[in-house]
């Protein structure tokens, strides 16, 4: 079976348009679901709304599709305000989480549906449906019913049904959540190659940071109805704007402490079990002496110092006690009690290496330039 999207793409390359969301506020009764959402999605971009369930990401997607209405704010597609258009006149293609394939129609009829609604001539419908099914590699299953297809095949049909109408933008609502783990990894590459081929501005809703990281150009991390941060996956991981973003993308170590002045050198972070960490001016963000906050760093920013020598230049020293360890294969993750707070450390593992035992004291060096200071 053909699992790669065929190179025979749809006839016309779709002209990419951008999406602008401005000052959107939406409430269900007293439940304020979207709070002052502002986003600018560029033409041709693969963009993700990422966040935990209940953060408002699906509500925002459905707002763009026209299935709910904001009390304030507007949504512009290609510069045109679509806030007052009914769903069927918006020309935004949406792939539903459940795929929503109609069980009473064959695959071909499902895919042809949108074109029939647009009164496209019969011969052209045939041609475009064939092209779309070809694109997802399912032409041979055109006469099946959706119930006779596997989950992955249903997913492709849903995609074909949506892209065949050549929508202005493509909305994907958790499209991979109903697939098994192996297929999910494969499908996300296929989604990406399809998106690149069509040049279609695409918005992808997911709660899985790995999915968003691997295929999206930029991500809007959402929580509690607000956009927490927008950026490329690397941006968000390396420079999280707040604790939520830090913790949602990858594992974050967080130490409580405060900023102290270090004379002429500038500011330093002082906390329990750690030597003072110099904060560059852009990192301290103008926080004056005495400002409480947290030092955030990743497990791989720490190095175990078995020799106990002085810290290397530009490193801070942490001392603690190993509480437990997890053998992960390529690395070993130790949880270390540093001044009463747990810190995760990843140590690379080679065959024959001895494991450190719990309750043993441990000395760690932190590359100071990798650490981030986050205010409360």
């Amino acid at each position: 079976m053909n699992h790669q999207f065929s190179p025979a793409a749809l006839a016309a390359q779709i002209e990419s348009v951008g999406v602008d969301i401005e000052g959107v506020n939406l409430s269900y009764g007293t439940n304020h679901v979207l709070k002052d959402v502002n986003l600018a999605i560029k033409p041709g971009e693969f963009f993700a709304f990422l966040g935990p369930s209940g953060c408002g990401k699906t509500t925002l997607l459905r707002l763009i599709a026209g299935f709910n209405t904001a009390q304030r704010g507007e949504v512009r597609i290609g510069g045109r305000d679509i806030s007052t258009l009914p769903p069927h006149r918006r020309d935004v293609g949406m792939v539903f989480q459940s795929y929503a394939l109609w069980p009473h129609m064959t695959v071909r009829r499902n895919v042809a549906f949108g074109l029939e609604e647009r009164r496209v001539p019969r011969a052209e419908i045939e041609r475009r449906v064939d092209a779309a099914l070809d694109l997802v590699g399912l032409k041979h299953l055109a006469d099946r019913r959706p119930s006779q297809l596997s989950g992955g095949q249903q997913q492709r049909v849903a995609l074909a049904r949506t892209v065949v109408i050549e929508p202005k933008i493509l909305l994907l609502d958790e499209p991979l959540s109903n697939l098994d783990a192996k297929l999910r990894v494969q499908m996300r590459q296929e989604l990406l190659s399809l998106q690149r081929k069509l040049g279609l501005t695409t918005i992808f809703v997911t709660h899985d940071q790995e999915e968003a990281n691997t295929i999206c150009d930029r991500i809007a991390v959402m929580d509690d109805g607000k956009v927490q941060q927008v950026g490329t996956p690397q941006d968000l991981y390396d420079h999280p704007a707040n604790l939520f973003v830090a913790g949602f993308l990858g594992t974050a170590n967080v130490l409580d402490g405060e900023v102290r002045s270090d004379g002429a050198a500038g500011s330093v972070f002082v906390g329990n079990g750690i030597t003072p960490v110099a904060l560059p001016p852009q990192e301290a963000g103008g926080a004056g002496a005495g400002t409480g906050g947290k030092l955030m760093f990743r497990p791989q920013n720490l190095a175990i110092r078995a020799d106990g020598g002085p810290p290397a230049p530009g490193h801070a020293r942490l001392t603690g006690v190993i509480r437990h360890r997890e053998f992960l294969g390529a690395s070993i993750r130790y949880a270390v009690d540093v001044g009463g707070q747990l810190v995760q450390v990843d140590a690379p593992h080679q065959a024959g290496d001895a494991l450190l035992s719990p309750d043993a004291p441990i000395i760690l060096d932190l590359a100071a330039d990798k650490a981030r200071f986050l205010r409360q």
Partner: protein
Amino acid sequence: MTSLALTRDRIARVRPGPALAALLIAAFLLLFLVVPVVQVIFVAFQDKTTGAFTLVNFADFFGNDLFMRSFANSFYVSAMSVVVASLLALPLAYLTTRFEFRGSVLIQSLGIIPLIMPPFIGAVAMQLLFGRNGSVNLLLRDHFGFSIPFMEGLNGVIFVQSIHYFPFILINLSASLKNIDRAMEESAQNLGCHGFRLFRRIVFPLAMPGYVAGASLVFIKVFDDLGTPLLLNVNDMLAPQAYLRISSIGISDPMGYVISVVLISCSLLALWVSALAMRGKDYATVQRGGGGLAKRRLKPLEMVAAYGIVLLILVLVLAPHVGLGLLSFATIWSFSPVPDAFTLKHYQTVFTESGQYITNTLLYASLAALLDVVIGTAIAYLVLRTKLPGRQWLDYIAMAALAVPGVVLGIGYLRSFYGVPMPFTGQPLSNFWLILVFALAIRRLPYALRACTAALQQVSSSLEEAAENLGATKLRTVSRIVVPLMSGGILAGFVTSFATAAVELSATIMLVHSQSDAPLAYGLYVYMQSAAGRGPGAALGIFAVIIVGLGTYLSHVVIERGRRERGQDQ
């Protein structure tokens, strides 16, 4: 080593308990369902005098004008009842599932009220309200100079049946509309579809299986019904003809049997057509509590129209109840919109003269319902939880009772058990009142069985395995874990069986041998034969409504409570 082999051997063997239960149930079904029905079919193909195989009875049937007219009438009445019932059910189903409508609660009760009164009970009252000289036509004639033949001949049967049976369509159609996932509709909108096209292309086809299920049920019920045409004095239909042949000419007349075979064939045909229409169309598309189609608010004018429709149907639905109530308190009610005066005398008559009808009914219906849930639970358990060979057949045979009209079962019992003398008394076995209980139990078994099966499916088998793992024997597991967990479903099955058995007439009327053994439905039929008996008959009907109404309410309460306890609120 030997002891180990022995244990294994014992485990591999079929357990004696379930096997014994299966044999007992099989014997019961064979004796009281299979044998009588096969007997009926057999006799239909038998020469009356020689007993040889013949088709001459069928030739007589198809060559007889009265029978052919009856056949055509039965078909016409059933088909028209489906049409009229659909006209009543469609707007109601559409209103509740598509709109934010306060009247939805009202519509839900509309779906229950008709079912708590069997159609034949209300038939006479409907005659007084809608007949040629009934209240409505008297008023129409006085004020507008015309009348509407609601109750003339076949119209009356269609009118009464469709008011009674439209809830089957309403319930099934609403359920399948509710089972359509919102994304089905939204994806169509997303692709540019809206309005009536959306309804025609997506919503309607997805709701079709539910509609077909409801409609075929209505068709079968009307086709098989004996009581309503009999009480409306419409005799040229198939079920009344079968009854009249047997009751007037005798159980040796082959025509009653031929008609029975035709009735069974048509039931099977309707079931087959509906199965065909539903095949491969399990369209329940709701996922992860996404539930139901999008609802919108009604505009003011639409709201008025919606309430208008609902109230009109409510009036129609309540008409038999109101009419029956009036009749039961009326001194004389003839050629006038409302009775001349009111009295309590009829209730007194019922209490003094016919208390036995009520006590008999309570006894028969509760015994039949008890039998149903015991057999239903046993079959459900055998089918779902044992590996007994042939267990599926118990289910099939029990469900086959659906296709057997009450008249046919009654005729079959008469034929099979009339020649069997009772021990001690020497009376024919078919005159024994317990036979009536068995007939009722067989008739209601399919519904009870489905309720019990559904209840057992909700009980995860790991709950049983946990009990066995902790040392409980199979029997103890069933009695301490399975049955308590099923109790809600079993109780609901009991109450439904009880309530419907209490007002069953088709089989009963064939089997009642003496007034003292007769249940309520039969008494009602006897009363309604004479003009003077109408008052007491209506009073008896009110008792029937109360019994069935209470039963329905109780089963509703039980089901709701069970649902809450299992945390399936919403």
